[in-house]
């Protein structure tokens, strides 16, 4: 049992069903009779006016129950609310205009998916194509094609922030450096696509929806608002198993509304399982971002100030929770460095690409790519070792909790210790020696470093940074980050737990059982965990869900607190029975025992039985039944203040990466030789799961660095519509990965844990880019580092060198 406690690498409970084909994923559900199937007609144009839609022929196809178009959606729903002041009208189906390739234009409800697709081919749409824009900066120009006439500009949101005295720091610095970086649009492509079952009940005007949605449940109110019903008339139930998301499935909510309407119009329950082409073209993705960065630094390598102008491409419609990508890292904008002066300018721009949303690392990869590249460029400029520049700037262990210039409160850490561990396990100095030899032999060998702060447990208030302090003051202050859990014991004494963290593979059931098992002194394998969230019966909050690595810091804390409540209750009941004070009792092996006298005990089964069968026998003041819910939040999550300070997350981990690469000069191919990553995420709850999260995040980061991009041509045509052109890394692309940990517990969570599922998505693209820059002596400011891109850079360098050589000859 000890092996199964908190912090132990217990094998997962979920595996038992998943390895036998008994998972219950979205498409496996058939909760209602007479479910019909949906196919969606999508725009082939990046930007066009819809002049007419003719659906009569489609409606006549045998088996078709209904065809839904934009006008119906406009009459049965309202545009989705979004946290910016720009009046963007975003409906779940195109109304009048399409603004990206793949945008839903019409819906067919039919007996099965085959017939629904047959009927789609019979819908005739007359489009008037309009000029499109996909380039971020072009979209900001006055004469650029305008997506939303009522907004009057493609800029959906714009803010500037000053912290410290940036101008003074720049004036006083020995050196400054500036560069423009571009981070590409990419996705996470979970293997299970979006899926929704929706049923409209006319008699009560209410909707019941099953969807592999995983929050944030702030979006529940967004959906309810669009459907114009109170929250309790939109019941959302999540399936037991969710086939991966990495943030992407938060973007399912427009389809929840669309299917709700489709069910209402067609008069039958409907099921829609997104196909892979739909998913790639039109689900959700990270933003592509242009960053102009300027750094001020001294000749010893100390960085004194940063200026960043960040422009996010949020696609055809800005949709909630965007523009959050710009602000998610607001508090940790300076990363792990002691930089006190910070200027940030943030823009959310709409272009004719698919709308964006959550993705593993949300904003971190876009943010740390320019910063970590700049740290290396500073080293190059000063002729210093990049490791030395990092050392010079890392926050010291004695400075925690550390307040960042933008209001973040870094809870704990020992960045120097973790960084030195990285250099030691990665044999940094030996690698540098080897590099000298390798380069002398003409090899393009490089080493990349990256250090980042990994925020976890978002404070929903950060999203309101998109508004000015004056605008914020007009509405309710926002700081939500609470999570809830329920622990109950039935009359037979068996324990179950209900969680609202909507896992999608992170093993929440296992860790919940580990926590409850340890607190209540039972075998975790005897604890039943229910992870399905039902908005009418589960305990949940606006912040519930699976995102911002919030299970470890917050979700697990709620479970722990609920278990503690049950523990207290059991002790209280037992205290009466055993005539011993609660302080002298303990829980162990399914029993409450008297400390120091284990012979004297009473079983949980007995205690639970009593509370159910004979409540009158309980001591006075003890409620019958054992059913305890706890909500947990962290006191450092506060609304942004009028000075624009905000603590956007409740815990902050640290990640330090070292990667060695060799670039093939003939093909531009980047070969990763070794990857070392050191994490400090506080107390680890299950090391097996922890390392699994790190491997997965790292490989996703590697995908972003080398392979994955949702490419569009300059006219807005989408080019990566299959898994032949959107390249996910496979087993043959994976380098040796070495994971190490240090643990400095968070003082803000009862178990000392922090999140860690996203760190390498943030750090890996930067680390690999640094390594490739180091190997090739080329400036890397754009990703992914495809062979063609790297080869182009090498060609350019060769040509420049030839020019220099020829000039030198004269």
């Amino acid at each position, binding site marked *: 049992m000890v092996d199964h406690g908190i912090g132990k690498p217990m094998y997962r409970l979920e595996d038992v069903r998943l390895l036998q084909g008994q998972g219950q994923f979205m498409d496996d559900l058939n909760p209602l009779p007479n479910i019909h199937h949906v196919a969606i007609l999508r725009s082939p144009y990046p930007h066009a006016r819809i002049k007419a839609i003719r659906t009569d022929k489609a409606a006549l196809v045998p088996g078709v129950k209904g065809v839904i178009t934009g006008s119906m959606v406009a009459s049965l729903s309202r545009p989705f609310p979004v946290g910016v002041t720009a009046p963007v009208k975003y409906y779940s189906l195109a109304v009048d205009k399409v603004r990206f390739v793949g945008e839903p234009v019409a819906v067919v409800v039919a007996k099965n998916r085959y017939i629904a697709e047959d009927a789609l081919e019979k819908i005739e749409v007359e489009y008037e194509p309009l000029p499109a824009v996909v380039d971020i900066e072009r979209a900001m120009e006055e004469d650029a094609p305008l997506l939303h006439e009522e907004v009057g500009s493609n800029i959906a949101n714009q803010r500037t922030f000053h912290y410290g005295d940036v101008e003074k720091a720049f004036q006083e610095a020995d050196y400054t450096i500036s560069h423009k970086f571009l981070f590409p649009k990419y996705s996470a492509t979970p293997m299970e696509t979006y899926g929704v079952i929706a049923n409209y009940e006319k008699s009560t005007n209410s909707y019941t929806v099953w969807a592999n949605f995983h929050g944030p449940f702030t979006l529940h109110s967004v959906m309810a608002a669009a459907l114009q019903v109170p929250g309790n008339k939109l019941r959302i139930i999540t399936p037991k198993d969710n086939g991966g998301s990495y943030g992407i499935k938060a973007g399912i909510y427009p389809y929840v509304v669309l299917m709700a309407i489709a069910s209402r119009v067609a008069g039958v329950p409907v099921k829609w399982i997104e*196909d*892979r082409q739909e998913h790639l073209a039109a689900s959700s993705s990270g933003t592509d971002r242009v960053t102009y960065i300027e750094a001020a630094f001294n000749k010893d390598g100390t960085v004194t100030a940063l200026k960043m102008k960040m422009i996010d491409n949020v696609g055809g419609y800005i949709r909630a929770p965007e523009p959050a990508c710009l602000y998610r890292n607001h508090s940790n904008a300076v990363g792990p460095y002691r930089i006190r002066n910070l200027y940030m300018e943030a823009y959310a721009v709409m272009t004719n690409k698919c709308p964006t949303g959550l993705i593993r690392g949300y904003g971190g990869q876009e943010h740390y790519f320019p910063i970590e590249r700049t740290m290396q460029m500073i080293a190059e400029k000063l002729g210093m070792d990049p490791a030395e520049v990092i050392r010079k700037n890392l926050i010291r262990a004695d400075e925690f909790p550390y307040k960042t210039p933008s209001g973040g409160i870094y809870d704990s850490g020992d960045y120097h210790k973790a960084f030195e561990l990285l250099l030691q396990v990665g044999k940094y100095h030996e690698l540098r020696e080897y590099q000298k030899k390798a380069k002398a032999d003409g090899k393009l060998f490089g080493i990349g470093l990256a250090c980042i702060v990994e925020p976890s447990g978002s404070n929903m208030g950060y999203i309101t940074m998109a508004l000015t302090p004056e605008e914020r003051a007009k509405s309710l202050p926002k700081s939500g980050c609470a999570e809830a859990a329920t622990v109950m014991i039935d009359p037979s004494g068996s324990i179950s737990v209900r969680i609202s963290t909507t896992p999608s593979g992170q093993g929440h059931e296992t860790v919940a059982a580990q926590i409850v098992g340890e607190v209540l002194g039972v075998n975790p394998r005897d604890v039943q965990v229910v992870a399905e969230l039902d908005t009418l019966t589960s305990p949940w909050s606006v912040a519930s869900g699976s995102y911002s690595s919030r299970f470890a810091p917050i979700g697990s804390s709620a479970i722990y607190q609920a278990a503690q409540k049950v523990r207290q209750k059991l002790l209280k009941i037992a205290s009466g029975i055993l005539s011993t004070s609660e302080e002298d009792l303990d829980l162990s092996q399914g029993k409450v025992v008297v400390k120091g006298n284990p012979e004297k005990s009473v079983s949980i089964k007995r205690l639970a039985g009593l509370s159910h069968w004979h409540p009158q026998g309980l001591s006075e003041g003890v409620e019958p039944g054992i059913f305890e819910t706890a909500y947990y939040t962290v006191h450092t999550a506060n609304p942004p203040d009028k000075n624009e300070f905000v603590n956007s997350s409740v815990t902050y981990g640290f990640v330090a990466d070292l990667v060695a690469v060799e670039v093939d000069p003939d093909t531009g*191919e980047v070969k990763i030789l070794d990857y070392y990553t050191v994490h400090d995420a506080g107390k680890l709850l299950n090391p097996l799961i922890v390392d699994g999260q790190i491997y997965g995040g790292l490989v996703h980061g590697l995908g972003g660095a080398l392979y994955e991009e949702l490419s569009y041509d300059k006219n807005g045509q989408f080019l990566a519509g299959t898994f032949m*052109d959107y390249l996910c890394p496979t087993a043959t692309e994976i380098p040796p990965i070495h994971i190490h940990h240090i643990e400095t517990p968070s003082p803000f969570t009862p178990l000392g844990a922090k999140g860690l599922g996203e760190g390498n998505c943030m750090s890996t693209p930067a680390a690999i880019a640094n390594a490739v820059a180091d190997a090739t002596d080329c400036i890397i400011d754009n990703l992914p580092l495809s062979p063609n891109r790297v*080869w182009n850079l090498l060609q350019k360098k060769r040509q420049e060198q030839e020019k220099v050589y020829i000039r030198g000859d004269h």
Partner: protein
Amino acid sequence: MKPPLFDYYKPETVDQALELLQEYGINGKIIAGGQSMMPILNMRLSTPELLIDISGLQELSYIRVEDGFLKIGALTRQRDVELSPLVREACPLLSEAIPYIGHMQTRNRGTFGGSLAHADPTAEIPMTLLALDAQAVIRSASDQRLVKMEDFFLTYLTTDLMPEEMLTEVQIPLNEMPKGYAFTEFSRRHGDFALVAAACLLDVDKDGHITSGRLVLGGVDSVPLAVHEAVEAMIGSVLTEELLEHSVEEAIRFLEPESDLHASSEFRKHLAKVFAMKAIRTAYQRAQNRE
């Protein structure tokens, strides 16, 4: 992504299949292993009136050596060719090329003839067969003909096969099979369509002089492209890096590959040079080792 409606006929003999083709010709579409055809159907890029499923024609699944040829039935699974000791012995170039096709799971189903008839210009089997100077046995209800690979490929996904015809067998000449061989390719990930691929056959005499050779490139044109000059120009010489680079550069000078998402025309052309050289180098070394 579900297939459209089609009539489905499944002949039990080659003759039945040929009769169906004679009758339905252009409106019928053959499906064999389906590893290219099924994605096209699922995406509804093809809406054939009639699908003629020849996957049950066991008589077209065989590998044998006969009359100086390695003969492979059109419906032999790629995986069976890959694992065949006979192929490895008689035609190592083919054994080297096949594992580059997709993945084990698609080679288990994909057929040898299907890949050839699909005629993707980057596909391994068409390229290799062109390098091997193979010929296709093509049958119709009324006729049977042999077509050399150099005459088989017309353009993207288009071959000399007429609507009423069916590919039944591939014949690879084994007489004078060069000792040196190499297949190499460059792709974004393992198992992806090659950006550029090269197949080389080459022979040397005992002093290391090149006596004959063939080179085929994939991914640089609308068909697998024979650029035998790259090797032929070096006949009589011992291979040196300088000579190799020169003759390959000369041979591919005229190439104008298409650009796409993964590689520009310029990059493809560069890769063509790099991988042609690589293939020749390896083939030369192997020829020398076996000499």
